Structures are given as C-alpha cells and as structure tokens.
C-alpha cells in the first residue's frame, strides 16, 4: 500500500523558509490553495500577499530579488505564465533573478477546466533562456523541491503536487538526476509527474509477459540530462514511450524526440499525453483515460511496439487510487 503524505509542500516550505530569512513567500490570492496558509499565519513578516494581479506580482518579485530577497511565488501554474508572460521574461528570466515559481495544479490535476489547467507550461518554460524547469512526481520530491530550487543561481519554475501525495521514492530530488525505476532492454518508458504513479499501475500486469521495460522517471526538464538519456535510448531494442501530464508537443515527448533526431538515432517514439488538444474539467482518473494517457493506454502502446496483444484487461491493472474530493488533505479552493 502506497503511503499518502498529506500536504507535503506546506510542511516542507515552512520548514525551509522559516530557516532562511531572506526568503519571501508571495501568493497570488491562492494562499491556502498552495498550502502556504500555515506559513503565512506563523511567519507573517515573510509573507507578501500580492492579490489577483499576476503582472505586478512577477515584476514586484523581480524588484524584491534586486534588493537581496529570494521570492517564492505561489500560484497555480497557469497563472504564472499565461497572463504575465511578458513580465516573466523581462523582470525574471532575462536578468536571471533568484525567483522560485511554484506552479500548482499541473496539467489535468484540477477539475476546473481549461483556465486552470497548465498543459503547456513545460513547453513554454523550457524554451525560455536562463530558466530551470522541474516537475515533482511524488511526496519525497515535493518535500525536497524548496531546497533544490533554492540552490539554483537564477529563476526556477516548479510543478508542485498538492493535497494527498503518494510517496514513491526514498531519495530526495536532485536537479538533473534521472531515476531508474525498472531495468530492461526492449522498451524505454519515460514518465514524469503524476504519470509515473499511473505507469506503475501497469507494472504487476507486465511481469511474466516476456517484455523487458526500462522505466525512467524524469523531474528535471531543464537542464536536461541528455548524456544519460542518449546512452539509454541508444541501447534500447524496440523503441521509446513517453507519458506526460502535458501536451505531447513541447514537453517530455518533444524533448526525447529532439535528442533522438539530434543524434540520428533510429528509434520509434510513442508520445502519450494530451495530443494537441485542450482538456475540459473532470477528475484525474477520468481525464487521463479520456485523453489517453492512463495505464491502459500505456499497455496499448506497448502492444503496438511488440506487434501483438498482451491479454491484459483494464481490470487487471492495479486499482486506481481515488482521491477523496472532500478529504481534509484537499485544499478548499479549486
């Protein structure tokens, strides 16, 4: 049974920021939604409420960094780049301000639909010069994100998981590192964020099927560990599957495609994720299935590679972890 950690970000941010007095906690009217309400109440001097004014928040954060502080911006991922993109570039990215942007509700992890779903944030952020881009995939990674993000001399964008978050890994996140979750030589499966937990649902069913799968978990999109990946892709027999809680254009799948083409590797690539489409509002389970990046879609992709059916039915997969919409671990606001 997977351990579920309740609000790992809220606790770890408090621990980290309370020990680093030059950190300022900025919030764009999403304080409890980003789990920093307890920090606000206990350390009001380190908290700066910016209201619903993201353009100002980005440039203001740049100014705070210019006077020696390290702002941690808390908002939903979408609000960190869609409206204030110009400010993000001019006030934070270009001058390499030490601003840490904590983007909550990555991809389809919100039922609030298009306006709340950051589905192209990685694509946008990883093309911005000077930006470091990280995505958390479990509670341990969320717990280590503040310290890791703060170790970067420049701006950082992080996709943060909130509420009840499963613990999948024992070791903390280290920027640039790639986690090897399963070794194999036929198919290279590369997952990130919530897709790693989803892919693990298929693990038991794939044992004794005669296919060997090398499974990697990626958390650092930029700087991307190209050397390591290149080596692993080169040695794989059938091909590569990427699975991401993001558009397949511009994110993980594209990153891998760029490496494959750059080095002239002759490998097939199946990209699971949102296929050039917006999503609508719904649960994570419903949306990953509807848009074809759940564990069963992964099984289907593996079947494509080996050219035969695996005789695995949807009900054979490990049970989906259903999040209780009204549990205490869920923030009240969307």
């Amino acid at each position, binding site marked *: 049974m997977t351990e579920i950690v309740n609000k790992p970000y809220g606790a770890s941010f408090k621990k980290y920021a309370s020990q680093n007095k030059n950190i300022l906690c900025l919030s764009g009217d999403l304080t409890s939604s980003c789990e920093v309400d307890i920090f606000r109440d206990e350390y009001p001097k380190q908290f*700066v409420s*910016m*209201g619903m*004014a993201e*353009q*100002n928040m*980005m*440039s*203001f*954060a*740049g*100014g*705070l*960094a*210019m*006077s*020696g*502080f390290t702002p941690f911006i808390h908002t939903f991922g979408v609000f960190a780049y869609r409206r204030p993109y*110009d*400010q993000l570039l*001019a*006030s934070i990215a*270009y*001058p*390499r301000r030490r601003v840490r942007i904590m983007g909550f509700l990555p991809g389809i992890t919100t039922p609030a639909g298009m306006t709340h779903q950051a589905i192209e944030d990685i694509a946008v952020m990883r093309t911005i*010069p*000077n930006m470091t881009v990280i995505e958390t995939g479990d509670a341990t990674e969320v717990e280590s994100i503040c310290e890791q993000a703060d170790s970067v*001399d*420049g701006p950082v964008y992080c996709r943060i998981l909130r509420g009840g978050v499963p613990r999948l890994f024992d070791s903390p996140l280290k920027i640039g590192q790639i986690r090897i979750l399963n070794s194999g030589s036929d198919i290279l499966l590369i997952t990130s964020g919530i897709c790693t937990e989803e892919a693990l649902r298929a693990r038991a069913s794939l044992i004794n099927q005669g296919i060997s799968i090398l499974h990697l978990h990626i958390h650092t999109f930029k700087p991307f560990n190209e050397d390591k990946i290149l080596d692993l892709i080169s040695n794989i027999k059938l091909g590569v599957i990427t699975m991401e809680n993001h558009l397949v254009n511009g994110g993980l799948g594209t990153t891998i495609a760029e490496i494959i083409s750059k080095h002239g590797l002759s490998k097939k690539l199946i990209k699971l994720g949102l296929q050039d489409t917006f999503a609508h509002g719904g649960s994570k389970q419903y949306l990953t299935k509807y848009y074809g990046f759940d564990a069963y879609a992964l099984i289907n992709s593996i079947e494509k590679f080996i050219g035969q059916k695996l005789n695995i039915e949807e009900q054979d997969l490990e049970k989906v972890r259903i999040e209780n919409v009204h549990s205490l671990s869920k923030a009240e606001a969307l």
Partner: protein
Amino acid sequence: MKNILSSEQIALGIRRRVFEHCIKNNGAYLSQACSSAEQLAWLYNEALHLGDSIAPSIPDEFQGVPSVSNKNYKTGAGYNGPNTKDYDRLIFAPAHYALVAYATLIEVGRMSDEGLSMFNKDGSSVEIIGAEHSPGMEMHNGTLGIGLSTAAGIAYGRKLNNEKGETCVFMSDGELQEGQIWEAIQASVYYKLDNLWAIIDVNEQQVDGAMADVLDIGDINKKINSFGAKCIEIDGHDIDAMRQAKNEKHDGRPLIILARTSPYKGMDFLKTRFPRLHYVRFKSEDERNKMNKEISKELGIDPIIY
C-alpha cells in the same frame, strides 16, 4: 554628486545634444527631449541622492546577455553610482527615452561625449531602446509598464532592510494605458511604500499620435489619488515646482508627480510635425535644413554641420 551647472543649464544642454544628434543622424526621439529635459536634469542634478558613477566614462562594448556562463555581465546602473543602503535608486521606465537619458548622463558628467557616438551602433551597449546593460539603465523597460512594479518590489525590500535610500521611477504617461501600472499603484499603496516615488512625463503623446485621439485616459490625477497614492500635478518645465512637489509630505503612501509638459518645449518649430512626434525622421532634405536653421536659432546655437 552636484554638477556645477544649474538644472536649467543642464536641461538646455540635453535639448541641444539630442537635437544635434537628430540632425546628424537624420532622426531621433526628439520630442522626448523637449518634454523631459527639465525632469531628467533635476533628477540627476538635485533630486536624487546618487554616488559618483562607478562605470567607465566611455561605455564598454556589448558584453553579452545574462547567462550562467557570462561572467562579465553588468547592468548600466553603475552610471548612477553604487547600489548601497543610503543612496537612491533610479528606475528609468520609458526605455524609448534612452537617447535623452544618455544626453543627461553626459551633461552631468557621468558619461563622456564618446558615449553618444556609440548610440545605436552594432556591438554597442548604448542601444536605441535602453537595455539593462545600457548606461543609466538597470532593467529592460522596452516593454512599457513594468518599471513601477519593479521599483515597488525594490522599495518593499529596502523597507525590510531598513535602508535610508529611496527608489525613484522616471515614467511617461503613455504607459498609464497598461493595466500593470494600476496593479503596481494598488500594491504600493497597500504596502504603504512611502520610500517610493515617481515623476511622470505627461506629454500626452504616444506612437500613434496624441493620447487623447489614440486612447484617452481621462483625469489621471484623480485616478491616481483615488487609488490612494499622493499625486501632485505640476508644470513639468518648472524646476521650482518640482522641488516643491518632492517636498510634499506623503507619509505611508507613494508620491507620484505628474509633470505636465509640451512635446516641443524649447523647439517650437517641431509643432509643424504635430501630432506624429514619437520619432522625428525628416521627410525631406528641405525639412531637415529648415528644422536645423529654425530650431538651432531657438536653442541659441549655430546650425549643425552634418
């Protein structure tokens, strides 16, 4: 650093320098010099508490953009002196006024004449639209509307650090059309940033022409005051009025001075180009000659030889 010249003399010097540049290069941001010369002269000569320049008198060539590997990177803030607790910090918001800023730096002895000859030359840091690395600049403001928010962030940080120095923003009225400006005023009022102040060159001009015809923004004094900042409206060519405005008490809130100006002050002949004054490029050799003759006379100099 106090200049031996009066602010009025410096303002005249700024106009002459920018005009000369405009005639020689067949175009320049000329009307901006007309409207803002007194404000920039007063800021550098009197209003701001700045240390001596720590930047090279002749600007460095372009040293590359900020990146992990660029160890040489510096902004142009060094021309405004060192960044220390007690000194003021100037954010130059309308980057299109760069030429006027450079002329000012020369007039107050912070940059040498040669600096202007590097203007808009390939490989030069003295860029046509002020960049972070351009003399007197500390950030990119070519995208209008981000300066006041940045200055508010700096001022907030300086309050936390108990710094004596103030943060000043030189702005232009066109950028008040951007929503971000109002977000910035909102935040600086909420956080009682009385160590923040701005002077806005209200010349009522923007690229497409007179602001009233492009997108009228109404009574900005009333708007800013109702947002909670202390707003004072003055004649932007009257340096005494600036001195008084700056002395107004604004405890617990930012001060915003609206400097009402004329885009052809000191160069009345420019009126012939109204209302397209954003960038003056001569339509013919005849116009160039005529402007050279007429405006030189107004500025009390011989026609420019080019």
